[in-house]
């Protein structure tokens, strides 16, 4: 049971911290701050800075392309609009950023490539921090994600941070992953055989478009994925302990 004065305090502070009312309105409800109205209102600014910093840290290349397009103001505007739409929840600050890629996709005037950059950066983050115990040995959708982008997003992310020109739009199919052994982050460019190897490993039926691939080609691609740390070796103790249903 919370004391009534504490309930009133939190109820008055919440809208100010979210930027919906000003400090004077808080004081009209709770009484004056001994430090003055401006000092009280500084807390809304501190919260805004924190949320902005979280997004800037999680999506540095999106911020960089925003800068190239409309300066810091464009990024600040996007960050503020996102914070209004999706306030932070949970202890992990990164989770505040979780819905940013999907939200960005709904915004008018935002190039599709920004949304794909946001998805790429978010995917790398969750792969990097994913819990070690995955639902399957290979950690699909936990430490290993398959993404198709309309542009070469991994290259564009690097170029954006270096302030370089984005280059031609070339669609790419990639595995974004945390290395199965070293735990380093990686991006592996997938061809048809690589995609088929991942599908088989996951126990998914191959689409007709991949049906013409030979078993040898798919096995060769699987070896390359294991070598790169995208997949766990079929000979590893972890993998042997699982029922072998994929291959």
């Amino acid at each position: 049971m919370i004391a009534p004065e504490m309930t009133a305090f939190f109820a008055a502070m919440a809208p100010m911290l979210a930027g919906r009312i000003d400090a004077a309105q808080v004081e009209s409800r709770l009484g004056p701050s001994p430090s003055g109205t401006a000092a009280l209102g500084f807390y809304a600014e501190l919260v805004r800075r924190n949320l902005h910093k979280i997004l800037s840290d999680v999506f540095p290349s999106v911020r960089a392309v925003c800068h190239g397009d409309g300066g810091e103001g464009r990024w600040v505007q996007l960050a503020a609009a996102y914070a209004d739409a999706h306030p932070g929840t949970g202890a992990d600050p990164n989770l505040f950023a979780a819905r940013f890629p999907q939200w960005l996709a709904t915004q008018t005037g935002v190039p599709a490539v920004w949304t794909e950059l946001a998805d790429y950066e978010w995917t790398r983050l969750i792969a990097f921090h994913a819990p070690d115990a995955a639902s399957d040995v290979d950690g699909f959708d936990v430490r290993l994600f398959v993404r198709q982008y309309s542009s070469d997003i991994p290259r564009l992310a690097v170029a954006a941070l270096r302030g370089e020109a984005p280059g031609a739009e070339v669609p790419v199919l990639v595995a974004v992953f945390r290395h199965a052994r070293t735990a380093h982050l990686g991006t592996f460019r997938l061809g048809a055989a690589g995609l088929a190897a991942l599908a088989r490993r996951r126990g998914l039926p191959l689409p007709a478009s991949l049906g013409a691939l030979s078993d040898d080609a798919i096995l060769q691609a699987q070896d390359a994925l294991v070598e790169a740390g995208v997949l766990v070796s079929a000979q590893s103790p972890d993998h042997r302990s699982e029922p072998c249903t994929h291959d």
Partner: protein
Amino acid sequence: MQNAGIGGVGIGLRREHYGEILQCTRPLDFLEIVPENFVGRGGAPLSLLRRCAERWPIAAHGVSVSPGGGDAFDGDYLAGLAAVLGDCGVERYTDHLCYAAIGGVAYYDLLPLPFCTAAARHTAARIIELSDRLQRPIAVENISFYATMPGSVQDEGDFVREVVERADCGLLLDVNNVYVNAVNHGCDPLEMLWALPTERAVHIHLAGHIREGERLLDNHGAAVGDPVWALYRAVMARHGPIPTLVEWDTAIPALDRVLDEADKARAILQACARQREVA
């Protein structure tokens, strides 16, 4: 795992130093983690933390649990937190005397409570609950505050004392926060320091701050300032050696630079210990 007892001078385990911390050969007595960076996560950071815990005692200092908040504690998060603390042999959990969320909305900031008995009772009860649920003693940090909240009828020192005495918990004495608060609120730093229940201090934090307009900002982004070192010496002289952490969380420099600050703190701490032996 190392003996979990914390002593001497430590630094925060920060991402910027992940690549070099295990090669560190300089004096370093413990590492402090922000557990939010590890709870529910795996991969390289958790693996590194476990290796660090084999070599150094680990302290844990949370930022999001919201000891003074109005929301019920997140049971899943506390279970994950307890697992990380157990994994690293952390004896005591520390957090901030603040709130960080309202109605499920997290602000990712350390927000001050009104200095009044209602807030002290409320927060002390939650600290006791937190201690029970984590099965560990708790210490709470005096935070930097840029405004005294409406409804305050005590000064900061009386409020902090009422909370820690009601909760019978420790104080994590942040000496930089004392200085920043004294300047921002026009008070004498030593008066503000001794108004706090320093006799309950189980850890000390040292950090840097910056000036932004008329205000000092506690941003942990600079070397420890001379006035903060002076306050630290005063605490050592009165209470003797207390485990001390050097925090550097913004514009984080090379590990060696952070360890230089830790060396300064260790020299003060050791000199204090020698003086007390002589006396």
